[in-house]
């Protein structure tokens, strides 16, 4: 506790705030160049830009949480210089994004396997609506869903299993094993939660390839926004328990400081149930604000919007957790863990609500060229939130927190 108190005493919160402001400006600049629909690259179409951002973030997670790249580059001379290391790893993450989107999905899987992952293959197949722009949006939608599943499983794996059961083996074995294991489960999650939706993005529906969205009667919409919202609400609990609760209560199931099967099982079930409860509560709150949704409703009346909006709210909270952890030293650092966790969670919820207010205020019109109002078709705050998270992760994972944090301690 004394060490924590010392850390708190030595941390410059004002510098943290300045750093956050700088990151906000970087995200604003990147949005202006790449996403703003009235400026340069205009990638926020929206799904095309969404897919690039989610794959970029997934690439960072893949490098840091799955492969644990630092174990492989420690001996490289460039790795000793934080700035060079950060620049090189950022470039690698960017190239990885290009490789995954354009080579793996558009060029390989979409060309030789599942047509809807490639805009060219969709257009080549012909039929109603199979023109280049709709095809690119549909392929991007499928990629977004696939990597949403990846974010869930990979972050759960990192918190639940950690290095188990390969902890006694080399870094290479651990990396490869985790990659195969995670992508195995990602494929299953994608097939069950998202593939049916993508199959129904075409007319007529690809009903021999994917079932009629099975959740339709249960939740009032055939849209996979239900699954997306559920996954994001679950991710919220995975992330705050890892970052703000310092790995508790899952740590109680560790053995010799390593993950166990029981720990993973408990983590998975508990975070999933908490995610469902969160989704339930958030949709209840939305019912109070906007009245109950109904089948076929649009804008805020649509059940699909309610579910993705729950996920978007979870996204704001996740962003807030990252900010509290990284730029405000996970304040507070004194007192018992349960109290620290509780206070941090409350702070994260408050910061998350501030971001929520920002995104739906006229400020977002100025910063992001967004039209004021809720539920604009094609707009989701998730893209901006994921871009923000990506830049935070680049700073903290690749640049090791530089310049806010100048040494590893």
């Amino acid at each position: 506790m004394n060490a924590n108190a010392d850390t708190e005493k030595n941390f410059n919160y004002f510098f943290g705030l300045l750093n956050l402001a700088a990151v906000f400006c970087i995200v604003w600049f990147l949005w202006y160049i790449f996403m703003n629909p009235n400026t340069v690259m205009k990638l926020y179409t929206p799904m095309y830009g969404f897919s690039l951002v989610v794959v970029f973030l997934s690439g960072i997670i893949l490098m840091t949480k799955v492969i644990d790249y630092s174990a492989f580059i420690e001996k490289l001379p460039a790795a000793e210089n934080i700035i060079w290391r950060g620049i090189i790893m950022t470039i690698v993450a960017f190239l990885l994004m290009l490789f995954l989107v354009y080579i793996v999905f558009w060029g390989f899987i979409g060309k030789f396997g599942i047509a809807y992952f490639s805009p060219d293959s969709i257009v080549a197949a012909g039929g109603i609506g199979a023109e280049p722009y709709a095809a690119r949006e549909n392929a991007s939608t499928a990629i977004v869903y696939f990597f949403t599943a990846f974010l869930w499983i990979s972050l759960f794996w990192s918190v639940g299993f950690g290095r188990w059961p390969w902890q006694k083996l080399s870094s290479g074995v651990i990396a490869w094993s985790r990659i195969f294991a995670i992508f195995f489960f990602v494929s299953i999650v994608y097939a069950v939660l998202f593939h049916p939706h993508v199959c129904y993005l075409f007319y007529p529906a690809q009903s021999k390839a994917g079932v009629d969205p099975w959740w339709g009667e249960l939740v009032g919409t055939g849209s996979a926004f239900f699954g997306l919202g559920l996954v994001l609400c679950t991710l919220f609990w995975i992330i705050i328990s890892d970052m703000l609760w310092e790995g508790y209560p899952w740590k109680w199931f560790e053995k010799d400081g390593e993950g166990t099967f029981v720990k993973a099982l408990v983590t998975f079930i508990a975070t999933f149930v908490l995610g469902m409860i969160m989704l339930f509560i958030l949709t209840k709150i939305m019912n109070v604000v906007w009245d109950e949704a109904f089948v076929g409703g649009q804008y805020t009346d649509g059940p699909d919007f309610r579910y993705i909006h729950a996920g978007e709210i979870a996204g704001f909270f996740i962003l807030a957790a990252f900010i509290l952890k990284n730029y405000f030293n996970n304040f507070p650092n004194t007192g018992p863990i349960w109290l620290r966790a509780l206070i941090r969670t409350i702070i994260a919820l408050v910061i998350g609500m501030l971001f929520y207010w920002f995104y739906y205020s006229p400020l977002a019109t100025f910063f992001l060229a967004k039209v004021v109002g809720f539920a604009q078709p094609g707009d989701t705050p998730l893209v901006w939130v994921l871009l923000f998270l990506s830049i935070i992760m680049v700073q903290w994972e690749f640049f090791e927190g530089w310049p806010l944090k100048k040494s590893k301690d």
Partner: protein
Amino acid sequence: MKRRTFLKSMAATGVAASMTGAGVLTREAEARKKHDIGEIKSVKIDVLTETSWFDNDQFKKDIMDYGGGMTNQYIIPWKWDNAGGYSVLLTVTTLEGKERKFMLDTGWNNEWMDYIYEKNNIPAMLKSEEVEFMVLSHWHLDHFWGIESTLKHKPDIPFYVPKTYYPEDMALLKDKAHHKAKDKNTGEMMHICKNDVPHTGKLVLCDPKGEKGEGIYRLMDGVAIRNFDVPILLRVRGENVLYFNVKDKGIVTVTGCCHPGILSLFSYARKNFKGYKPYGCYGGLHISLFETWEPKFDDIIKGVKAFKIKRLGCNHCTGWIWAEKAAAEGVPVIKGTDKYKTYKKFSTVAKTSNVFLTNGDTVTF
């Protein structure tokens, strides 16, 4: 999968309890003060033009080449010869048997709109004030940019518009604006719209509060405007919707694009209008705008049936494939005719199924 089956499988994993009721929760809408908007005998709708553009792929290409659905419509150099417009003539028969006319929307391409207006004797009706006033559904190009074609016949016509305008919109309406957009390939500034006849009449800026705080603007007995402040594609915001209460039949909605969603319109009427009975709708329903599909469109078909809408007249941004599928699944879609084929241009997606009320068609509720 049925709810029961799903819950059974979830129970096996011990999480069923937390899922109970996690779907669309039903509760009584909060009690509101309901308004009596009066009644009319009937409303006749003449489809002047619903072909806002003729080639879907070209229109979509224009949008996507310049940044997608969130782009400001005034920075896109639209293909001029693809532009048409959306405009409707409404004739209300009052309970006393008197006929009163007004129009919804003013179209886009002035050459097209002049052609359409001449074909339907609109200039004479405007000049003689037989058309009493106009309503603008929203500030989208295909509903508003053809304003000169109307104002040159009647510059002081009373005009109900959404309050959520941008400076470019008001400049076009009031300040003789000639808007241009830059072609990103050639760098050339391209004409996109103009109006040399400023509007001089009464301008009513509609917002969700409505007049007298009732949430609606009463145009005449049995007819009202409701403004829905929703964000829309191409940086536009807010849409005016027309409500008619037809005696012995029920509520009829008439829309430009229906961005808020057809069921949200009926939901609003159910919550706010005395003696609500669903009856019919007409207009663009903004579903499968570009003839593409997504699971949500199946939701809308289910919802329309659940709301028990008895006559559904659609066109424009509804999507032919949605209208065809809805008709096939039992939605009472009002069929159009082949009259549109006598026009000098028609849409590339028009089909023989005639599930759209197209240019030249008429429907009476």
